[in-house]
């Protein structure tokens, strides 16, 4: 579904990704692990089109993604839950969710999805009239997730979705991710909670200072010595 | 970085000194001295404004008010009350500092455009007072200002002086004086920036919350830098008045406030040498464009726009970036 080849990206003079090759098949959960500063967020931002690529290719269902703008990518179904939540602080929770469906306009279907989101995250229904900025950190994280789902993504990019969530909710989030997979969604998951992420993933990649150093099935990675030592702390 | 920073600081000052003292070799015409003198004084005021805008991140759209207050204070004391210029200038600075402190306290609580608005209001109120109090200020037609004197010794553009045995004209003398004033202003400003106080100021820009939880009294520092930049403006205003020999309320006008802030942004917010370049450009540009008559305004607007579009970080920072890039490239080529 998504194929990345030889991708290089830099901030000014500093190159952050030094030629990345990644493939995500339709219906898979692919997990990306790496230390702080490895370039995980940079990669997601490049896929979403907020960070320009220097060289290499990204193809999505055979189309060259680098040729289209960020908004087009969302319309094509590539949607991201960004790091640090990035909710629209001075808009209400409901407006945030509705804007998630911006590319879909406003229809009955969207209204129904809104209801479904409230069912998934009941706290959001309770806070729907509150400004997003008033939510607690974890509540904002849920909102960010809900906003992304409102776009009806086909490829969902998750940048540390469990960050700042209570243990019960983390379980909940992982359950949701599984559910989404069952609904046929493709998911690219960046997680620090590597053991859980890899357990869930069909395949995984390990990123180290802008390079893919290990790749394999989730199970392979979980049992890989190097990964266990460096990321799972076992 | 700090090593590099202080290194750069020194380099900037030395560079500036060389420019200031070498310039007379390229000037033959007393008018150009006048222009250079005026530019140096305005640039020094802009260096002060940059402390507030570029480092502490607080926008002022009324800074000319303080410039004008300083100018008028000195003008009134010297011409109406026969004071000598130095005490007038110093007392003017104290007076302006007090005013700035009083108005600064409440308005510096404001953020962003609301702060701009409040400073704009303060500037306007000052300008209105200067404009209306005809008996004291001469009203909109302005008032003459005696030449600058240091306890009896007079500095006048029309005088003749000798310096290290050389005969120099009053224009050159004024220019050298203004140049030295600028250098001192830069030196002080750079010392301030490269210090714990300077860091605290920048942190107010970066994150007030972060600053306050490590013990920075943000209100105090904002007031402090507001007062310091007002004092800069006041002193330069006073000198400007003495140099010009005549002032009108336009020295305190909104237009001038906008010009000052434009100098900061055009030159490069937060870069002391940069904002001086901004001042030089915006002081000289109208002179260059004067020959274009009706087209002057169009060209000025166009140049201002294009510069900011293509050098959004300001002249100096953008140029420095370009240079760094080029260097990185050629270094890469070598490797």
């Amino acid at each position: 579904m998504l194929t990345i080849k030889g991708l290089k990206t830099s901030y000014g003079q500093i190159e952050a990704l030094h030629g990345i090759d990644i493939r995500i098949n339709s219906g898979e959960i692919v997990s990306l692990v790496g230390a702080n500063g490895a370039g995980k967020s940079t990669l997601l931002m490049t896929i979403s089109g907020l960070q320009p690529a220097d060289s290499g290719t990204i193809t999505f269902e055979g189309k060259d993604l680098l040729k289209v703008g960020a908004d087009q990518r969302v319309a094509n179904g590539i949607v991201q839950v960004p790091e640090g939540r990035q909710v629209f602080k001075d808009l209400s929770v409901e407006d945030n969710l509705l804007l998630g469906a911006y590319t879909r306009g406003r229809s009955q279907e969207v209204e129904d999805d809104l209801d479904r989101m409230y069912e998934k995250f009941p706290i959001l229904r309770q806070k729907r009239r509150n400004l997003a900025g008033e939510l607690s950190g974890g509540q904002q994280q849920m909102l960010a997730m809900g906003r992304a789902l409102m776009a009806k993504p086909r490829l969902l990019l998750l940048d540390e979705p469990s960050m700042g969530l209570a243990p019960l909710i983390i379980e909940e989030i992982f359950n949701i991710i599984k559910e989404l997979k069952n609904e046929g969604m493709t998911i690219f998951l960046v997680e620090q909670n590597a053991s859980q992420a890899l357990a869930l993933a069909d395949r995984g990649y390990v990123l180290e200072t802008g390079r893919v150093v290990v790749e394999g099935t989730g199970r392979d990675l979980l049992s890989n010595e190097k990964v266990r030592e460096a990321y799972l702390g076992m | 970085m700090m090593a590099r920073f202080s290194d750069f600081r020194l380099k900037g000052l030395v560079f500036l000194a060389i420019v200031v003292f070498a310039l007379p070799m390229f000037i033959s015409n007393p008018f150009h001295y006048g222009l250079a003198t005026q530019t140096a004084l305005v640039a020094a005021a802009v260096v002060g404004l940059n402390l507030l805008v570029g480092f502490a991140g607080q926008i002022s759209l009324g800074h000319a008010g303080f410039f004008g207050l300083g100018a008028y204070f000195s003008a009134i004391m010297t011409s109406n009350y026969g004071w000598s210029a130095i005490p007038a200038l110093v007392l003017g600075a104290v007076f302006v500092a007090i005013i700035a402190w009083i108005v600064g306290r409440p308005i510096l609580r404001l953020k962003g455009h609301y702060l701009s608005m409040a400073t704009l209001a303060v500037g306007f109120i000052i300008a209105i007072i200067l404009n209306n109090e005809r008996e004291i200020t001469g009203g909109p037609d302005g008032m003459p200002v005696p030449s600058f004197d240091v306890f009896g010794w007079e500095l006048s553009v029309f005088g003749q002086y000798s310096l290290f045995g050389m005969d120099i004209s009053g224009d050159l003398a004024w220019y050298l004086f203004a140049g030295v004033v600028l250098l001192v202003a830069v030196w002080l400003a750079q010392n301030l920036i490269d210090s714990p106080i300077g860091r605290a100021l920048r942190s107010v820009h970066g994150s007030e919350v972060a600053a306050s939880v490590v013990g920075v009294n943000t209100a105090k520092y904002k007031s402090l830098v507001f007062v310091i930049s007002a004092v800069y403006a006041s002193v330069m205003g006073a000198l400007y008045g003495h140099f010009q020999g005549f002032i009108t309320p336009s020295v305190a006008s909104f237009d001038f406030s906008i010009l000052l802030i434009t100098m900061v942004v055009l030159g490069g917010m937060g870069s002391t040498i940069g904002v001086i370049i901004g001042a030089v450009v915006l002081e000289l540009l109208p002179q260059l464009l004067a020959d274009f008559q009706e087209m002057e305004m169009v060209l000025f607007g166009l140049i201002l726009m294009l510069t900011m579009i293509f050098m959004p970080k300001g002249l100096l920072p953008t140029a420095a970036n370009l240079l760094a890039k080029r260097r990185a490239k050629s270094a890469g080529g070598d490797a």
Partner: protein
Amino acid sequence: MTALVEVRNLSKAFGGVHAVEDVSFSVDAGQVYSVIGPNGAGKTTLFNLITGLYTPTSGEVKLNGESIAKLQPNQLAERGMCRTFQQMQICMNMTAIENVMLGRHLTLKSNLLTTLFRLPALTRGEKAAREKAAELMEFVGCGEYLDTEASAMSYGALKRLEIARALAAEPKVVLLDEPAAGLNAVETAALEELIRKIAGQGITVMLVEHDMKLVMGISDRLLVLNYGRVLAEGTPEQIRTNPDVIAAYLGG
């Protein structure tokens, strides 16, 4: 012996939301004291109240026996309290080390005169501050970023930077709001080590965290909030087995 931090019947309401309601507890000097609870339970709000960023609706907080009701955050910092944030507060217009040096603000006594004329005392102080800051950055594990612009650092690196900044102030008590968020297991283990070291220096640590492994392993006592109210308080052992806490928060 009076407690270092003492919270009495503290409440904070935002409009109709009772973010913190009638919370009381106390923290003794030298403890590692953690606050846990579901999302939106009021943990961050509690920290904001203790550090003077919010004014309580009712109740009070005492630091070292002194009521902090009228004190600003910077005055609390002067009394030895420092913190990090869940939503990071970094000065993005500065380099990493300058951010940490900012933490030294209170220990650098400088007046306008020494500053303007750059007297030697100032340069000396700056040099020392820089060394200390570099040391701290090494200590928290972002020594490689010394002169990096803060805006060019990754999320995780910034989180550590914030801890370094808080420590630079040489606090008596430091409040950490979700320091492990965004760290992987190995990094979290390193953080645990770090917090132990901090506590080992006699600094009181208050911690909000969702990583139970970290919290349970390191805390002397725990406070559990739910809907702004105290659900439980006690040692890790007591909390781990408390059925209310399991139901509301831990799951399992």
